[in-house]
């Protein structure tokens, strides 16, 4: 692996805290206040432990911990390198906000089985952190499968027939993807390949692969992570999973689960295969074509949906493919942009989902057509929605403008101007499916609204925070976590020959 490693139990602790919080939830189940205080405390503690790993990761001294052998010669190993840090920081930081938001949401709707909800939520975050810190393929698979398992109770939370159907679909897709990963991992283990992630890939060193074997491995691995990254045609579980309560859609289906898929794509393409091998194989074109098509198609599908959460789900599918395409372009600038987009989309999409949830709790309206004039009654919520919509469309100075700038620049850098056009076109489409909501919310009037006002402060405050963060990180992406620095250091490690992107954000 590139960069040094420092032995430290901290990555393991960071994964363990959410798991412990999940164990505490049933114990405290009778006292909702204590249970939810524990949930917030766990989120804060987790974030603290992850943040403590940051200095090491940015200095290139990644904290590493090996736990025990899971299969002869293969250990469960966690390593907080720069790429993992990006994902872990994002997930653990947004968990804090989502934990606060969940209280307002779940109490506001008087949802049932809240203890199960909080326990599964914490477990899922723990599994996502495990995915982020996994140092080798088997550890990655372990947490990837656990993430599937732990999010299942959240998808079926409502226990309606629709939720049960969505849960089945979810399991069918993600377990199949997991099996593809398991097959590929077993194959590598059989060959005795040390499947520790390595910037620039480890398969390129093994020159004895035949083309057929490489392609088989490629389809197993990329297909396996592609399910959670919702690359078409593997995407249809995601809109179905929107039956889950909104905090779940917000944190898990906009941040933790799907980003685990996208992050897995980064690991597979950059840390397993490596740019040189993928260029030789021509395999990047497969991913680029699939994600490029997804990007445009999903945007069009988003236009067609009147249900706000579904529209946001298709928007998520589209933006996930921004990232996947950026990774597949195999250039340092595109990779920097992709990683920034992963962070930026996380914070922006969680804003949009939080807003959708707040609207649902106050008005029980889910259809876009029913939201005309809502901005007058919920100005903070819809204001935040507007900021996030601007960011989604890639308007400066929001975070998604910065990332898209690098993505487009990166496409041009590797000589793929066609994809630059795809990125730009999709920005217009993002505006087309989000701006009308904002405009109608403020400009139109709807006579049939009873007066209702803003949602609970525990929902509005996180909404305001994430919306402003999208703006702040657009202006200064390095504050306070150094996301840009982390992203460009990953790119520099992955493409040692090219000069790293030196400039700061425009």
């Amino acid at each position, binding site marked *: 692996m590139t960069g040094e490693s420092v032995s430290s139990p901290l990555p393991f602790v960071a994964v363990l805290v959410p798991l412990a919080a999940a164990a505490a939830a049933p114990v405290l189940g009778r006292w909702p206040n204590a249970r939810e205080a524990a949930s917030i405390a766990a989120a804060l503690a987790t974030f603290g432990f992850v943040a403590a790993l940051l200095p090491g990761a940015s200095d290139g001294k990644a904290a590493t911990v090996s736990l*025990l*052998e*899971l*299969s*002869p010669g293969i250990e469960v190993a966690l390593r907080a390198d720069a790429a993992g840090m990006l994902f872990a920081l994002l997930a653990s930081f947004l968990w804090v906000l989502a934990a606060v938001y969940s209280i307002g949401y779940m109490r506001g709707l008087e949802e049932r089985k809240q203890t199960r909800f909080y326990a599964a939520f914490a477990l899922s975050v723990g599994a996502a952190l495990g995915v982020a810190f996994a140092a080798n393929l088997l550890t990655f*698979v*372990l947490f990837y*499968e*656990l993430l*599937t*398992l732990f999010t299942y*109770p959240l998808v*079926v939370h409502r*226990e309606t027939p629709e*939720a*049960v159907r969505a*849960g*089945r679909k979810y*399991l*069918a897709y993600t*377990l*199949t993807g997991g*099996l593809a990963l*398991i*097959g590929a991992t*077993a*194959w590598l*283990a*059989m060959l005795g390949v040390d499947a520790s992630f390595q910037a620039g890939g480890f398969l390129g060193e093994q020159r004895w692969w035949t083309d057929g074997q490489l392609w088989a491995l490629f389809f197993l691995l990329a297909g396996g992570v592609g399910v959670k990254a919702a690359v078409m045609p593997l995407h249809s579980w995601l809109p179905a999973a929107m039956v889950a309560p909104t905090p779940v859609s917000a944190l898990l289906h906009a941040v933790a689960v799907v980003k685990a898929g996208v992050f897995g794509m980064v690991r597979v393409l950059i840390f397993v295969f490596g740019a040189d091998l993928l260029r030789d194989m021509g395999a990047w074109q497969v991913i680029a074509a699939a994600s490029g098509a997804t990007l445009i198609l999903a945007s069009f599908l988003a236009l067609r949906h009147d249900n706000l959460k579904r529209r946001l789900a298709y928007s998520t599918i589209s933006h996930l493919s921004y990232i996947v395409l950026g990774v597949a372009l195999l250039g340092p600038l595109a990779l920097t942009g992709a990683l920034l987009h992963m962070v930026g989309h996380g914070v922006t999409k969680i804003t949009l989902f939080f807003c959708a949830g707040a609207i649902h709790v106050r008005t029980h309206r889910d259809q876009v057509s029913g939201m005309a004039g809502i901005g007058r009654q919920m100005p903070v919520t819809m204001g935040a929605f507007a900021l996030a919509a601007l960011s989604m469309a890639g308007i400066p100075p929001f975070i998604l403008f910065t990332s898209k700038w690098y993505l487009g620049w990166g496409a041009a850098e590797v000589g793929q101007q066609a994809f630059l056009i795809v990125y730009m076109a999709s920005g217009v489409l993002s505006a087309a499916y989000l701006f009308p909501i904002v405009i109608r919310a403020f400009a139109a009037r709807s006579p049939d609204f009873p007066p209702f006002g803003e949602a609970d402060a525990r929902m509005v405050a996180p909404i305001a925070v994430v919306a402003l963060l999208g703006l702040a990180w657009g202006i200064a992406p390095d504050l306070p976590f150094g996301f840009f620095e982390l992203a460009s250091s990953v790119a520099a490690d992955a493409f040692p020959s090219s000069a790293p992107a030196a400039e700061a954000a425009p």
Partner: protein
Amino acid sequence: MEQLPILIPLPLLAASLVVPLAGLWAPRAVFPISVAAVALSAAMSALALAEVVAGGEALRYTLGGWAPPIGIEYVVDHVAAFVTAVITGVALLVVVAARRAAAREAAGRRGLFYALVLLLLAGLTGMVVTGDLFNVFVFMEISSLAAYALVFRGGRAGMLAAYRYLILGTVGGSFYLLGVAFLYFTTGTLNMTDMARLLGEAEPNISVAAGAAFIFAGLGMKMALVPLHLWLPDAYTFAPSSVNSLIAPIMTKVGAYVMVRMFISVFPEGYLADEVPVSQALIALGLAGSVYGAYAAMGQRDLRRMLAYSSVSQLGLLAVGIGIATPLGLAAALLHVMNHALMKGALFLTAMSMRMGAGVSDVRMLAGLGRRMPATSAVFAVGAVAMVGIPPTAGFFSKWYLSIAAIDEGLWFVLAVVLASSLLSAVYLFRVIERLYLAPAPAIAGGADDAPNAAAPAQDAPARESPLDVTLPMALLALATIVLGVLNVVVMERVLEPGL
């Protein structure tokens, strides 16, 4: 401790003689004596395992001091010690958990019932520790006869199932005996070590080939390899709950173990693939069984019948591992013997608990039990997740090593089927989890529908969680599927790899 090999079946055999008498004079003593005997046997197995792992040498004991090949030899090597430890350990937990069910189902004939249970276990452990091919047959018949009698106790349907089991089981046993006789013609010995030496020297001839074919056909019947599985679904469904949670996890595994034994200590290496296509048959039938069993399980309404077909599916995977026959393939199969014993033990006990506590075994009637029987349902969920093979549960590692062994041999379709079958098992197991946790509780009162077994006890009584002496052993089994999954490397490297 040179008598250790015989000390594993001996307490069980001795207790099986005492228990019927105790049943007459002191019925209350029957259960403690039986549990003590099983516990003693489990302790001896654990001791033997520790000794073998520490010393690295097989423990050998000759019965009556007659030196082999004249006398009967008992051999406990790594593999045998591992398998007896698994069998007796799981049996101990199941016997404890099934106390209440057995008290109800054995109604008044407790002494006889436990004598049969002990005979069954004595036969199974005896099959594992013996080093003599004919002695295997003797113990096999002891365990089988006990099993027929136990299944017979399951009411009218149980009688028919037992009769069928008896016919097919006897055919299987006779095939095995015939096969051993063929080998005896050629070699003139019944001792496994001796046989291996003589078969290695002998010219390949049709008598040995026929012997191998008969032996594996017989064992295939015992381990319910498709299409020889026909006795299993009925036997597992209609046997008393206390019985099927005992025989389902361990009985067929011992048949599989004897197969492994044939590969590692009787037939010369490569013989069973090159001269007689046993390996190929095991892989083909195993794959067919793993898919067919899972497919059939999807269509079952009775929980126990679903689990029985799931066993057919899992035993198919086991046969694939044996058929691959490399040290890794056999190790994967033996690891699966343990993993499946733990998972199926836990799952059949939950079926028993649901039948006792809620009076249902129809999958459609399980709705809402997640809240009313939380411990039982949680154990089911853990067992199901392990069966599907989510890491780091034990079931994942069965699949993992089996995959590696298959890839190693270039058997790509095996890899594909192994992975696909775990997806199929997800279909039928999550269906039950959905019922337990997600479906609203029905008005059970009016529920006497067409379910064949929808239980005798009061239908309208609210479901109650089983007492701690049922849930605790069950939970221990479920916990073991996780702990032994995480620690699988210890089992693989310390126990199975040195033994193969």
